[in-house]
């Protein structure tokens, strides 16, 4: 059985609280070429999205000035390089101390495109810790489920590949579009923050490691293609189906996925849940009889960092793992574009 031997997180960029973001966004909405009634509706929507205490990290120095493709793609690359520096600085000493090299490097991002990919750039920083014959894979366009998909992929690789490094790097603030006029673009503007994380997956359990007991995957391409997707202006923009369709579909798919998981999941008090749509999460938790406290780690993460796409669930898992006694399990739930939901369960081994 594969284990998550270590989790590394990177917290970079400037902190922007709702209180700080809101006046800037309101000024942008005021400049949009909209009929007054539509402007009022959009402004109220933004105010509602930014109610209360919440923050996000922003890697882009001047996000309001992001323009066409070139500036956004360059901002993604610059931010990704900084995240990779921060992750490599943590991974390298740990791998050297353990005396291992990585047999594979898998990267994931949903918020930008690079060539060469993130896996090569990370390997470059790790020098001899990634061998010439190591496998390099870059997962793209995988949405918020990317990191757990990568864990699932690592789990299914040949056990001869003993040590696998996964990196999730997300810079959704490079997609902030203050010239957009639709509610879903502004929902994206208000929801996301930047973040990155890495996981060392092994076959030998190590102290503090998490055995990967189960990962279930459910995709619903029959009804889910339009639930979350990119739309386009000068760059990619965030697009959602209408709220009712979105809520109904997501609730159904999450409920189905959990019902197919191994028995006993409901009894676990520890949950690392991707922080997408806190209202929806709370509704699902109530429907499934999951105690409200179970989603507290996700809501705490969301308050502090907002939604970091595929990096969020790894941050939450790291925080939970540190407070989990040996033998206890943690449930993983993540969901995103496709539409798909992944459920997993890991257990602290020592």
């Amino acid at each position, binding site marked *: 059985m594969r284990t998550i031997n270590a989790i590394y997180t990177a917290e970079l960029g400037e902190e922007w609280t709702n209180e700080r973001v809101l006046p800037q966004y309101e000024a942008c909405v005021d400049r949009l070429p909209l009929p007054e009634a539509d402007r009022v509706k959009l402004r109220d*929507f933004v105010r*509602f999205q930014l*109610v209360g*205490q919440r923050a996000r990290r922003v890697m882009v120095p001047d996000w309001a000035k992001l323009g066409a493709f070139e500036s956004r793609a360059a901002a993604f690359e610059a931010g990704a390089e900084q995240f990779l520096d921060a992750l490599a600085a943590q991974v390298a000493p740990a791998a050297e101390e353990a005396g291992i090299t990585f047999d594979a490097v898998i990267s994931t991002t949903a918020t930008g495109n690079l060539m060469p990919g993130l896996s090569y750039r990370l390997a470059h920083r790790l020098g001899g810790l990634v061998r010439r014959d190591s496998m390099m894979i870059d997962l793209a366009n995988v949405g918020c489920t990317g990191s757990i998909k990568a864990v699932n992929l690592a789990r299914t690789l040949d056990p001869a590949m003993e040590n696998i490094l996964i990196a999730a790097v997300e810079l959704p603030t490079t997609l902030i579009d203050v010239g957009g006029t639709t509610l879903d673009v502004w929902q994206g503007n208000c929801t996301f923050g930047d973040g990155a994380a890495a996981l060392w997956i092994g076959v030998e359990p190590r102290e503090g490691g998490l055995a990967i007991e189960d990962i279930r995957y459910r995709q619903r391409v029959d009804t889910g293609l339009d639930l979350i997707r990119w739309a386009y202006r000068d760059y990619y923009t965030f697009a959602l189906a209408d709220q009712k369709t979105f809520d109904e579909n997501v609730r159904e798919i999450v409920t189905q996925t959990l019902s197919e998981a191994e028995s006993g999941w409901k009894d676990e008090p520890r949950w690392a849940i991707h922080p997408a749509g806190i*209202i929806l999460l*709370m509704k699902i938790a109530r429907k499934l009889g999951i105690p409200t406290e179970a989603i507290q780690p996700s809501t705490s993460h969301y308050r502090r960092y907002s939604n970091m796409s595929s990096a969020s669930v790894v941050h939450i898992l790291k925080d939970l793992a540190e407070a989990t006694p040996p033998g206890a399990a943690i449930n993983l739930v993540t969901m995103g574009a496709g539409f798909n939901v992944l459920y997993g369960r890991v257990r602290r081994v020592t």
Partner: protein
Amino acid sequence: MSMDPSAVLERMRAYFERKQPPEVLATFGTQSPKALLPDSLDVVDFILYLEEATGCEIDVNEVGEALMNKNFGELAEEVSRRLAGR
């Protein structure tokens, strides 16, 4: 399902029974949701409560404007209208 505004308002008020002082509850209809629900999770919890209390699902994006700009009396009217329209 229908519920008149005063019944909706009464259910809303019940949510704040042990959370707010009597003087606030006495003028509940004129109080601002923004002031009594300062945190986004407070808003979520209130909406989930309201769904249970009215037996009807509430689209937060539909009532978001009222939550931001209106008082509880006006919000109760808005919710009552939406319930009647289903």
